[in-house]
């Protein structure tokens, strides 16, 4: 149920994101989801890719600092309150969402959100018990 996310430290200067994506493209790895969180000095680029190990090695070889974190992909119903339902459930279980972003691809005609929870295992447990569609790793990363 866990999906491996890569995070990359980048300075706020022109062209750095393109640099990262082109290194990944060069090793024939696809980017499934991407989001940037930034401050005035630096940013953290987070990505779900088709081959995390390969992308990580390629980036490290080019001198980037790369982190790996487990995140959870959840299908969100495309109707009012779809996202709210998930957030409410997590909050009432005493868990926290550290950050979230959406995936570029549609799975089974639904939008998919990537969640970083403070307690990943417990969050997966709560979501599946409530019948919320947590997506398998392979369906997120594979073609």
């Amino acid at each position, binding site marked *: 149920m866990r999906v491996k996310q890569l995070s990359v*430290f980048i300075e706020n200067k022109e062209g750095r994101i393109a640099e990262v994506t082109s290194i990944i493209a060069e090793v024939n790895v696809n980017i499934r989801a991407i989001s940037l969180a930034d*401050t005035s*000095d*630096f940013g953290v680029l987070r990505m779900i890719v088709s081959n995390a190990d390969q992308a990580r090695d390629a980036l490290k070889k080019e*001198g*980037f*600092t790369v*982190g790996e974190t487990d995140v959870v992909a959840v299908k969100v119903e495309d109707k009012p309150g779809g996202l709210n339902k998930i957030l409410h459930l997590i909050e009432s279980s005493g868990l926290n969402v550290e*950050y979230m972003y959406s995936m570029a691809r549609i799975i089974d005609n639904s939008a998919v959100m990537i969640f970083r929870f403070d307690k990943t295992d417990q969050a997966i447990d709560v979501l599946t018990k409530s019948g919320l569609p947590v997506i398998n790793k392979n369906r997120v990363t594979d073609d």
Partner: protein
Amino acid sequence: MDIWDPQKESMKRDEIEQLQLERLQATLNRVYKNVRHYKTSFSDIDFMPEDLQSLTDFNKLPFTTRQDLRDDYPYGMFAVTLREVVRLHAPSLGFEKPVVLGFTKNDLNCWVELMARCLSGVGVTKDDVVQISMPTWKILNTFGIQRGAELIGASVLPVSIKNLPNQVKIMRDFRTTILVTTPGFAMGLINAISSSGIDMITLSLKQGIIGSEAWSENTRNLIEKNLHITATDIYSLTEIFGPGVAWECHEKNGLHISEDHFLPEIIDPVTLEPLPPGAEGELVITTLTKEAFPLVRFRTGDLTSLNYTPCGCGRTHARISRISKRTDDVFVMNATCVIPDQINMIITKLNNGKEPVFQLQAERKKDRDTLTVIIEVTDTMFFDEIKKQLLIVDDIQLAISEFLGWNVHVKFVEQGSIDRKKQVLDNRSL
């Protein structure tokens, strides 16, 4: 461990001082007669070499700085004619600080003799294979170490190749027992060994003589553990001859400086007053036997202290403490002395004991001095959550600000973006 020259290395203190006084008088006479710089600087304070009656009179003499050596480039500081010089070294030619050293035949003999003391002091015998792995621009300075090892009867293997895996293969195939290198190179070798898949058991390494750059006890532990060796420190001073000016014996409790050839002093780098034994300050060295390139009260820029108590190894020559910082990089800001090494310690502590790559940038904005501590991010300091990333920035910022007593700004940058040769960038136009 054998003492190479017990008669000299274990002299009584009063005998050392008597010998130093005699040799100092000879040195002062020679430089006064042959080197314009010294003639002028002695005359400026109305000092004649024969005025020197005791070692305490010596305190009056002016210091010699790197700038003086640069001003008299190339041959101005030579105390003999070029005809008597048999070897020339220009270790930093082409860099910002050109220095040309000369050696007479006698100078070379002394150098080799001193290196034999150093090498046998750490246990080199005629059965050893000594591999000298130095970056190309430093290999020249190891001429004395090479000859010293030969004098002992050891086999010497100087390798100045950059390719670390090849260094490891040479080490294995030639059954190297002693490695002379820099801390940076030693750390690189550790990585090369682990990625080459070579089993440490197949290496014969037992001892590392490590120097040319400052290195911490932490690094020593790492090197000893990973290379399965005893690692001792060696102090290098380009203006004298390079590595080997002082060296650690197996007691690992300070670096012996051969007092029959050098007269060390410690001064306060700001007031320039001499400091008592044990006090930390700038190391000042006077050469006592050098003929071609003698130095009188040369300011090394290195911070250390002197210990005159006889050592557990049986030697009586003074020991300097390990050098971890240089006065060159110390700067004054907001009425505080900023020492990069102390900033390093603070960051290392907050980074689980891992030393950071960082740079201090001083600027003057609207008559106010500001300091930015630029740190290269590493795996141990990088988080996917901005919140946590900002927290470590804050922690470091707070710790340094509290230490200095005024606020600094901490900024993380990508790996490889700091110029490693510049620990301090002082952009204030003072």
